[in-house]
Structure formats: structure tokens, C-alpha cells
């Protein structure tokens, strides 16, 4: 019994026959395929437009120059940084431990003592004056002294501004 060929193998044979054939095949279907194949050759052939070629060349040229430009830019930045570092003002060194200790002179100590005394005196005078001014406005609270024995002896003590003695 004759086995029908595999469609893939059959089409492969036909394509090979078309490729090899220099003349029109006898089979009508294959002849039509052969004619179409020859008709298609070169359909829509065209040269790459000059404008595209020009743009490509320009692009390639620019990209080739890219690393050089980057190198020049990097060198410029380095030069600026170096110049800035070299021209920067000298930084004042902080004083060392031995230089930071200040020994006051006798005159310094005398001036300091005079300042303290002045503050002390002025402070005492201001407090006494304020006390006098305020005392007149104060009302003596009723402490119930009259109820105490010998109240006459005790009252002058409390009524005296200076109770120190």
C-alpha cells in the first residue's frame, strides 16, 4: 500500500525543486509559485536615504567625541579643585594645652576684688533702700501678742525694724 508523504517533507521537496529550477516547472501550481517567486525579487528595493546616513555619521562622530569631552571636563574639574585647595587661607591652629592656661597678675586680682566689692556694696544698699520703701506700705499682722504674758516687753522687739538684738 502506498503511504502518502508527510506534508512537511512534500513541501520541502517542492521548495527545493523551486529553488533549483531555472525554467518553469511543468506542474501548473508549482509553475505559478515559481512565477510569483521571481516576481517578488527586488520588490520595493530602495537605497538607505542619504539623510539617515548623514544623521548616523553625525551621531557616531558625537558619540566618539563623548569620552574626550568627558575627559576634558574631568581634567577641568580637577584643576579647579587643586587651585581652590592651594589658594585656601591658612587655617589657625588651635592653641595647645600649655598655651591655654592664663595666669592672672596681682593687678588682675585686685581689679577682680574691687569688682566683687562694688557688686556687694551696691547690692546691700539697694536691698536696704527697697526694704525701707516697702516697710511703710506693709501692715503688721496681728500675731496675738496681747494675749501673751508680759506682752509689753515682747511687742517692742517685733516692732523694731532691726531685730538683731
Amino acid at each position: 500500500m502506498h503511504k502518502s508523504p508527510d506534508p512537511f517533507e512534500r513541501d520541502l521537496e517542492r521548495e527545493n525543486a523551486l529553488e533549483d529550477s531555472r525554467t518553469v516547472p511543468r506542474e501548473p501550481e508549482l509553475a505559478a509559485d515559481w512565477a510569483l517567486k521571481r516576481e517578488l525579487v527586488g520588490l520595493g528595493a530602495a537605497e538607505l536615504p542619504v539623510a539617515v546616513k548623514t544623521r548616523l555619521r553625525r551621531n557616531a562622530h558625537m558619540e566618539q567625541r563623548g569620552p574626550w569631552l568627558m575627559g576634558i571636563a574631568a581634567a577641568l574639574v580637577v584643576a579647579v579643585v587643586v587651585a581652590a585647595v592651594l589658594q585656601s587661607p591658612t587655617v589657625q591652629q588651635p592653641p595647645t594645652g600649655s598655651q591655654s592656661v592664663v595666669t592672672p597678675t596681682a593687678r588682675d586680682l585686685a581689679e577682680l576684688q574691687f569688682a566683687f566689692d562694688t557688686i556687694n556694696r551696691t547690692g546691700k544698699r539697694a536691698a536696704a533702700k527697697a526694704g525701707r520703701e516697702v516697710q511703710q506700705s506693709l501692715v503688721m499682722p496681728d500675731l496675738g501678742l496681747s494675749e501673751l504674758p508680759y506682752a509689753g516687753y515682747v511687742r517692742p522687739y517685733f516692732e523694731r525694724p532691726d531685730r538683731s538684738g
Partner: protein
Amino acid sequence: MKRRFEQLVDQHGSRLYQLARLMLGRDDEAEDVAQETLVKLWRNVDSLHAGQELPWLITCTRNACLDILRGRTRTRGLLQLVASENKAQGPADHTGPGDEFDSGERARELRVALAGMPEPARSLLILRDIQELDVATVASTLELSENQVKVYTFRARRQLRHRLEEESDAQVA
């Protein structure tokens, strides 16, 4: 590097442009695709071994074209929803006014019918029959075996012929 790049542009640039024109049917888009592909070549030329360039270039061009065609399909789908576009119009009818690059009526018919072919049939016909690339290069580009390239090309050609005959019969009727 620059010399090699320029050699490759001179050698394959027109082929890529033709491939893009046939796939897209528009000169302006084909120019963009060819340029984009060749810019990619410039950036990758050092990493490509000798002999690898053409399959690589065709793959880049074809992928860029397929992206554009997919975008068109999406756009066309939206337009069809809005405007109930005539179904009889083939894909090439959506090309712009600058697509009249084949003067003959027969060439126009072929181009329109080709544009309406599905992938990879369209690419196979362009690469094998129109550009006459060798089987090995096409197989490498489309990731097919050499026998598959031959068989699929044969079937694509026959499909194209039937479409052309149907179109011709419809015009006569």
C-alpha cells in the same frame, strides 16, 4: 570601530530600510526604524562577532517593525470601534500618502497582499524571496531550522498567491 560601522551601514543599510518599508508600508517610519537599528549597531558593534551582524540587524529591524505594527493594530481596533471602519480595507490601506514607492499596479498589489500576511510568513517572503537571503541567515534570524524556513516560505508564497488570485477574482466579479 568607526570604519567597521560604516562598512556595515553601506553593506546592510539599504536591506534594512527595504525590510522596514515592506513591513510598515511607510517611508518615514521605515527611515526611523532603520536609523534606530543602525544606532543600536553603533553601540553594539564591538560586541558583535563577524558574521553575526546581519542576523542581528534583521532581528532588530523586524522587532521594531513588529512593535509598530502591534501599535497600529491597537489603534486600528480603537478606530474601528469608533468609526466602524470598512472591513474590506487591508493593512496597507492604513499607510500614509508617502507609501507609493512602487509605481506599478502589480507591485502595489503585491505589496498590499504582502502587508496583509501574518508573521512569520511576511518576514519569510521578504527575506527569502524579495531580499534573497540565504536559508542559514534567515533560519538564524527567525530562530527556525533551515528546513522549516524552506517549508514555511513555500507555504507563505502559496498563501500569498491564493490571496492575490482571490483579490483578482473579486475585482473581475
